[in-house]
């Protein structure tokens, strides 16, 4: 006769197995078409670079990794930090962070607004958020360019109102990249935020007011903690693609200031240094993963206190 404890542990095992089976299709697809190939990439980062791109198979070297952080000066052979790479890393992190914060500042009220519409109109609002994104990224980026260029709408409007005399040079600056990324990634923030706000229980909000909390307090102590899974999901969805953005800096930034995506592309393209490209990519991945783990751990800890 099995004891109650044994039955329970048996049931638990079955449950765990079922959960693995249920996630198997997703895991399998991602393994074949995303993670598996990255092992090839990892291997490439330890190989000798081929003369015209690619790598020399079977010849190993740490050069790729070495040149991520350090470089021999081209001219006097002294060993220095690869400050070109580091400043590109820094610019990418800075712009992606600003993008995330801006989309959150715009997206949170928007998602809240949608979630507080009458039930039957909410889907229409969500639909309105997604419509601009049924056109592809390149077209949207071009369209954004029409809005912010010197002879574009924003400048014409500002001049017409009389705020400025000379057009603001937005195109081809970091501002253009920031605007472009905020515009392109906004729905990636709004949609998950909405998904978790939609099920917000307003009785809790009411209870807050009953206890004489102010609007700000209710927002800070009740609403934000309750929708924190949405905030996390949205921030992840915006931050990471921003970090690897390639098309937007190229079109709106005028290609003058590289971001990580462009630097990596250069190594796989005209730079013909695949091991360095691979090592840079893996460095970026590790950075992102560390940030993510830190974030998720913190969030789940603070989430736990709100049940």
């Amino acid at each position, binding site marked *: 006769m099995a004891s109650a404890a044994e039955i329970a542990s048996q049931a638990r095992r079955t449950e765990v197995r079922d959960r693995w089976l249920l996630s198997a299709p997703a895991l399998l697809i991602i393994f074949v078409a995303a993670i598996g190939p990255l092992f090839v990439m990892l291997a490439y980062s330890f190989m000798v670079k081929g*003369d*015209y*791109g*690619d790598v020399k198979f079977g010849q190993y070297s740490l050069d790729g990794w070495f040149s991520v952080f350090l*470089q021999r000066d*081209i*001219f006097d052979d002294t060993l220095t930090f690869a*400050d*070109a*790479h580091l*400043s*590109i890393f820094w610019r990418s992190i800075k712009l992606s962070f600003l993008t995330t914060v801006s989309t959150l500042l715009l997206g949170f009220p928007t998602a809240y607004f949608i979630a507080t519409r009458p039930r039957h109109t909410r889907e229409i609002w969500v639909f309105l958020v997604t419509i601009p994104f049924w056109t592809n990224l390149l077209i949207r980026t071009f369209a954004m*360019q029409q809005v912010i*260029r*010197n*002879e574009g709408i924003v400048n014409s409007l500002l001049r017409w109102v009389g705020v400025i005399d000379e057009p603001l*040079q937005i*195109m*081809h600056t970091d501002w253009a990249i920031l605007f472009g990324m905020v515009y392109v990634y906004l729905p990636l923030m709004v949609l998950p935020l909405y998904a978790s706000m939609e099920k917000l229980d307003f009785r809790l909000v009411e209870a807050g007011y009953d206890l004489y909390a102010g609007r700000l307090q209710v927002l800070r102590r009740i609403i934000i903690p309750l929708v924190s899974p949405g905030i996390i999901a949205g921030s992840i969805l915006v931050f990471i693609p921003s970090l690897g953005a390639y098309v937007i800096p*190229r*079109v709106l930034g*005028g*290609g*003058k*200031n*590289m971001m990580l995506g*462009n*630097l990596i592309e*250069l*190594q*796989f*393209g*005209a*730079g*013909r*240094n695949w091991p360095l490209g691979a090592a840079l990519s893996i460095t970026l991945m590790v950075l992102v993963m560390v940030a993510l783990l830190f974030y998720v751990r913190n969030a789940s800890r603070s989430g736990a206190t709100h049940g």
Partner: protein
Amino acid sequence: MTLKLKAALAAMSIFAFAGSAAAEGELNIYNWGDYTSPELIKKFEDTYKVKVTITDYDSNDTALAKVRAGGHGFDIVVPSANYVPIWVKEGLLLEARPDQMENFKNVDERWVDVPWDPGRHYTVPWQWGLTGIGVNKKVYSGDANTSAIFLDPPAELVGKINVAPEMNDVLFATIKYFGGEWCTDDKELLKKVRDKLVEAKPKWLAMDYSVTEKLPAGDYSAVYYWNGAIMRSRLANPDIAIGYPKEGFPFFMDSIAILKDAKNTENAKLFMNFIMEPENAALISAFAKYANGIKGSEQFMPAEMKDAPELVIPAEFQGAGEFLTTCAPEVSELYTRIWTDVNK
């Protein structure tokens, strides 16, 4: 109903094997985007009853990486001059011997014994051009025939310059500006090159591809860019004029070649021969606005192209032009580092 039908067709197309699709009467061209005249393709299809498929790429390196990896299904590719030796060295091209084809007699002698394919055993000229200066005469009326326009820009052009985002073209002009040779590894000279570029870059507005829009519209007042685009800009705004850097400027030529693992070799050869016909070569130029290498094609070209200042290089500057060649791997690495330094 139609939607269902279409979905079914789509589903079928997904599971159809490419092998069975490679029947007779097909040709798969892998070319730069927006570079292949649809008229030319239509004419070829009608003449030879061949179905042509065109797929685009946007950089030499993407094309190279893809074809080298295999499983691509292309027959014809159109690499730039400085890449042709790499393609040959990596064993990717078929030695199709276009020099023995019927229409080879039409190829301008100038383009037969080229350094990247001596005697034309592999490739046939598609289009050629150069990277030069374009200025808006209303903004700047001085001498435009110098790389100083973007390396030491005159005050009126500062902050209004666009430079092609092409590592090789930019380094070429800068090395020549200091009197060096392309592919040099002279560190002292390269240090000057880097420092000059680092100093000049803040004076540029952009490094972008959108010249035909923004040069005529006035967003840019000067560019270092391809001549075809400068011509199109002039056609849109007569104030635009071309300049040929006297210190030295790079030529480019894209040539078509047949891939070693092509499935439709015979059709590819037919196509090679076909584009050496002057009337057909003219179609290529009329579409993309660059010169081709075929004698007698001028008479079939649109009037605006016949003596365009962007296509007919003045005699005094002809010596300043030089083809970008393939540099040794160590030298390319050096150049990439300089380029990264400039773009950080």
